[in-house]
């Protein structure tokens, strides 16, 4: 049977900006057969192929059940890694020359608290101007195609990472009708379609969505039978981590996607081909979705105030450290979703999930509510 696998790789943006990705982080999801994982070298080749980096030396790592980042560099630890998949295996790839070896080892994945607080202090960045260009936090994922292997070829599941960007999502939807094959022949059924992309918006810049694409699902929930207003509300409710399954109006692009992943060696061929089983990983979607749920709580220990002023004061900067990001506990065998695999000093471990945009931006966004 198929083990859903997942890699994420993280490249410095300078040379690797290709195709769909404007920023450095790329995610790939594919399947491996758990019973016959093959050899490490084949796997290594597969990774290079999947990420289209045939001549780049990379370090491969994975997170084990304790949350440690461990290397994969021979058949033994490769097999061990595959056996821990539950069912997802999260693999991290770094360029060898940029790799930070200290990232591996126990507790690496749980150090994020410090990491976060470092990130949250904007002045830290300013002290290190030389890393501005290629720091991983400069490259957040903006979109990805996911579940390629479980969706029908004609469908595309697109994830838009709105969180922390200035760009609007930038698209509109409308009512329409689509033709379906039914036992009684062709039938027109109502559907929801993308009606417009705003130039410069997130949706347009990804190139993954187009006008007249039919929207089939929003975050794993089918939209058939729902009104335009309902679908609008669902999308807005999920807008910080929106996963839309569409039937692209231009089906020719599907072929391009297939040709990119096909032709690789060994198991990768079968595993990277889209499977025709439309398996909705609702749980996965739900689990991943949690990361957008971090409400901000400000605890107040201040003086009694008859009538506090609403305007931000200089104190508010200091109070930032009191912002506590709430996160949901681990679900579906995932790491706690809000964990940030980001090591500031090394800067080479991939960011697995979107992180609240640190620095002055978030200050400005939330400035009005900080009134301590």
């Amino acid at each position, binding site marked *: 049977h198929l083990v859903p696998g997942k890699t994420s790789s993280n490249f410095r943006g300078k040379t690797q900006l290709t195709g769909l990705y404007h920023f450095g982080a790329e995610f790939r999801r594919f399947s491996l057969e758990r019973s016959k994982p093959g050899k490490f070298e084949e796997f290594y080749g597969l990774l290079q192929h999947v990420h289209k980096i045939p001549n780049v030396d990379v370090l491969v790592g994975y997170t084990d059940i304790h949350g440690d980042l461990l290397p994969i560099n021979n058949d033994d630890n490769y097999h061990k890694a595959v056996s821990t998949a539950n069912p997802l295996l999260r693999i991290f790839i770094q360029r060898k020359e940029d790799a930070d070896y200290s990232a591996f080892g126990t507790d690496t994945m749980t150090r994020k608290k410090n990491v976060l607080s470092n990130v949250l202090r904007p002045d830290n960045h300013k002290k290190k101007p030389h890393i501005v260009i290629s720091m991983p936090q400069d490259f957040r994922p903006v979109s990805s195609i996911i579940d390629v292997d479980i969706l029908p070829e004609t469908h595309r599941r697109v994830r838009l990472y709105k969180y922390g960007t200035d760009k609007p999502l930038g698209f509109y*939807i409308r009512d329409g009708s689509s033709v379906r094959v039914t036992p009684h022949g062709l039938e027109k059924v109502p559907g929801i379609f993308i009606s417009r992309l705003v130039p410069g918006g997130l949706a347009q810049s990804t190139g993954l969505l187009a006008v007249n694409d039919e929207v089939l699902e929003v975050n794993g929930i089918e939209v058939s039978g729902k009104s335009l207003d309902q679908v609008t*509300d669902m999308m807005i*409710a999920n807008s910080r981590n929106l996963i839309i399954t569409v039937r692209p109006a231009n089906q020719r692009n599907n072929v391009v996607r297939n040709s990119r992943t096909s032709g690789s060696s060994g198991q990768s061929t079968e595993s990277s081909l889209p499977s025709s089983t439309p398996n909705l990983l609702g749980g996965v979607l739900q689990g991943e*979705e949690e990361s*957008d749920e971090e409400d901000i709580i400000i605890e107040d220990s201040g003086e009694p105030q008859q009538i506090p*002023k609403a305007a931000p004061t200089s104190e508010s900067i200091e109070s930032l450290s009191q912002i506590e990001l709430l996160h949901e506990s681990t679900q579906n065998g995932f790491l706690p979703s809000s964990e940030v695999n980001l090591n500031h000093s090394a800067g080479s471990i991939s960011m697995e999930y979107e992180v609240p945009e640190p620095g002055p931006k978030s200050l400005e966004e939330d400035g009005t509510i900080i009134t301590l």
Partner: protein
Amino acid sequence: MPNPTPLLLHAGAPGASAHPPQLCVAGGGRVYPRCFFDGPPRYGAPGVELTGLHKETATVTQLHFLPGQGWLLSLLDDNTLHLWEVCQKEGCSHLEETRSFGLPGRPGCSPGITRVTVVLPMAAGAMVCLGTEGGAVYFVTLPTLTLLEDKTLFPDEILQSVPDDYRCGKALGPVESIQEHPQNVSRLLIGYSRGLVVLWEQSTRVVQHLFLGNQQLESLAWEQSGKSIVSSHSDGGYMVWAVSGTGQRTQQPVMSTIPYGPFPCKAISKILWRTCESGNPFIIFSGGMPRASYGDRHCVSVLQGQTLATLDFTSRVIDFFTVQSAEVPGGGFENPRALVVLVEEELVAIDLQTPGWPTIPAPYLAPLHSSAITCSCHVSNVPLKLWERIVSVGEQQSPRQSSAAWPIDGGKNLAQEPTQRGLLLTGHEDGTVRFWDASGVSLKPLYKLGTANIFQTDCEHNDSLNQAGEEEWPPFRKVGCFDPYSDDPRLGVQKIVLCKYTAKMVVAGTAGQVLVMELSDEKSEHAVSVATVDLLQDREGFTWKGHDRLAPRNGPLHFPPGFQPSVLVQCVPPAAVTAVTLHSEWNLVAFGTSHGFGLFDYYRRNPVLARCTLHPNDSLAMEGPLSRVKSLKKSLRQSFRRIRKSRVSGKKRLNANSPSSKVQEANAQLAEQAGPPEVEMTPVQRRIEPRSADDSLSGVVRCLYFADTFLRDAAHHGPTMWAGTNSGSVFAYALEVPSQEKFSERAVEAVLGKEIQLMHRAPVVAIAVLDGRGNPLPEPYEVSRDLAKAPDMQGSHSMLISSEEQFKVFTLPKVSAKTKFKLTAHEGCRVRKVALVSLASAGSEERLENCLACLTNLGDIHIFTVPSLRPQVHYNCIRKEDISGIASCVFTKHGQGFYLISPSEFERFSLSARNVTEPLCRLEVARLQDTSCLSPATSLALCPGCPQSLLSLDSPGSPEEHPAAFSPGPIDSPNSSLENPLDTTGDITVEEVKDFLA
């Protein structure tokens, strides 16, 4: 003569309502049918009401009761006739449609010619005659509804007896009226539009008497003895004709008068003649007013000898009849007891036996919307003491002028006595708050509270002018209480809170006024202390562009017994109050507007806290919704009062326009984007963007809440106040409230404890704190009066926040998310109203379950467990197009709810299997004919036009009866159970505000 006058109802403009027409009867030995366009009926003796729903969506134009037989005939505007039967099921009466009938067209004639204009059920109960547009009279048997073709009377047959000089080759016109001879049932008086009136002997098919009228005829009535008739005409006059032997022609009436002449008058649409033992007969007619000066009045005139009263109604007169004893001995008098007038917006009964003809207060059907309803609030389990006090001040307020009993007394109410007293409070546009007894099936008015007299408005002046003018002739008398006109929209009531234990009430309005009131059994004269609270808190760059605040009247004011204001707090800027809450134990009232919220200590009468929630970029919040009003000149406003349509037509407009307003909304959003020109070609589209902090009106305070809980640490609990805004912010304050004895010495202090920003930024609709057992905290004084169990202060408390998109439970005092349910993400619907309700098991009152009830923008009601937030059940309740219905919904604490199905009618629903309020009543009917052939089953077989649904309106939804659909979607939560009152239900949404501003 067992012939109660049928009530002909014309029920409004066709096609104006989205509801199918509904048909209502009230019943009994004397049954007076009435029909409503839509909405629940309440007729007969109080509690007696029957409801039927036509399968067709056409409008009901006429309704007739078949005397004594429990049958009802309805005529729809699609020209079909329907027979309804009152049948008994398990001892209770129900209304079922058994048959329908349509007149066959006449070959070679336009279909309009068979349009039915008059329906007259014959006293014998075996036949009904139908007058038509074409002038023909048809006879149809009952109850089989078969046409007796050989009896049909065509106008040609009449014309043969008409002298040539009268005939002049002209048609007689439509049949305007058919009346049975009061003594001889085989004789019919038939009136044609052109003015000809014929006395027709059915059995011999002979014209007995011709009255050659030349004035266009409107209606006819017999004098009871059958010796004379009266006819009313389109010129505003009526004529009395003497009826004598056979074969006569009468050219001239005995008497002809135009009562409101000599200037041109409008038509008298209906006239009645009732004999009276004590003197002159009553002549009662509608219309006939002088065209130029009073052509816009809706009047019924009652004339007895020299005594004339012109009853002046505020809405169109639809029909009227008199009530007298059914049996009038031969040669006796009718002696009408009461006059019942149905006008478009209410039903009024006039006592004709008491001098001065006072109105009889209605036990039901009081117009809810005598001024438009702007908000409502339900109080369950009202203590008997408070109830009696409210009833008593209400009685002092409107002393009964008539001792007569309500004249409509048919049927028997079988519903059980309500187990508890429920009070529904409605706030109105004119600043009044009305108290209704909502314990039973019908709403009974108890008390009316006005708040306008505290302010300087110009309406008193107007009223006195009007009064003076009306002393003259005609002798107008204002009747009925429907008065949709508000001189100052700033008086409108937005929020009401009532503490049932201390009889303290807070009423908050459109111009930022917050009135703290207390019930007093004595009249009083005192000054109201006034305080202003600046909610902008010196924020720069904002200028309020809306209406001014209301100027309070100075000096001591006189207050009648009832709720009397003690403190007036005015928000600055004077935007409409959007949330209010009261804690009578701490003497605190909290209020919020679109700019911020404030906390006021009404014991010491000083402000405790003010907090601005306005986003710096929000300019819309500074536009008052009423900014246009003040620019209207007074004279202009007065002329608008005259032409302004009633709220009913306003509602129709709303329904009709809602799709287009969505288009406008979408277009407005498009315009913001300044998209390329081709966008204008695209159909309705929706923009997908996350909510952002600087959306307009993000600072609107949606809910306020007081709780005694753990805010700062887990060891000490204390008073707290919570506020939620439109942009998903929650503010929590710890309050220092001095003990009861020290209220006057120490001030209340408020310290900001926590701020929570929900990342999805959806408006916060409600906040509630759950105790250690997961039960909602009790209301103030509930525990100290032994009416509720003390909350569990040992276990850790949690907080339930309901936004428009999701429900979330957080731990306290350290706020971290425990469980949540993302309703919008799963279902695509948004939360409009929520309440914590306690649902009792149908079997045992002891088994209580606390649930979260939620009404969505699609009109669905969802029930969730608390605090685990598991979806339990959901079902449709309100049509999703019925925006005002959804906005008006209130939940009670025990799982019932009310919403407006029209501007004048509340619908009650029940989520509880135990708490069901439904009309149970019985109508005794003595059928003259065997009706076994009419049992529903047979008639279904006989008649394809049988009803598919008969809808009883007052108790649509216990969960058992409805196909309970479980809402799908994953649930992430741990466990627990329980809850009750979240009384903060946000009444407005951003969309509604935008619509209003648009």
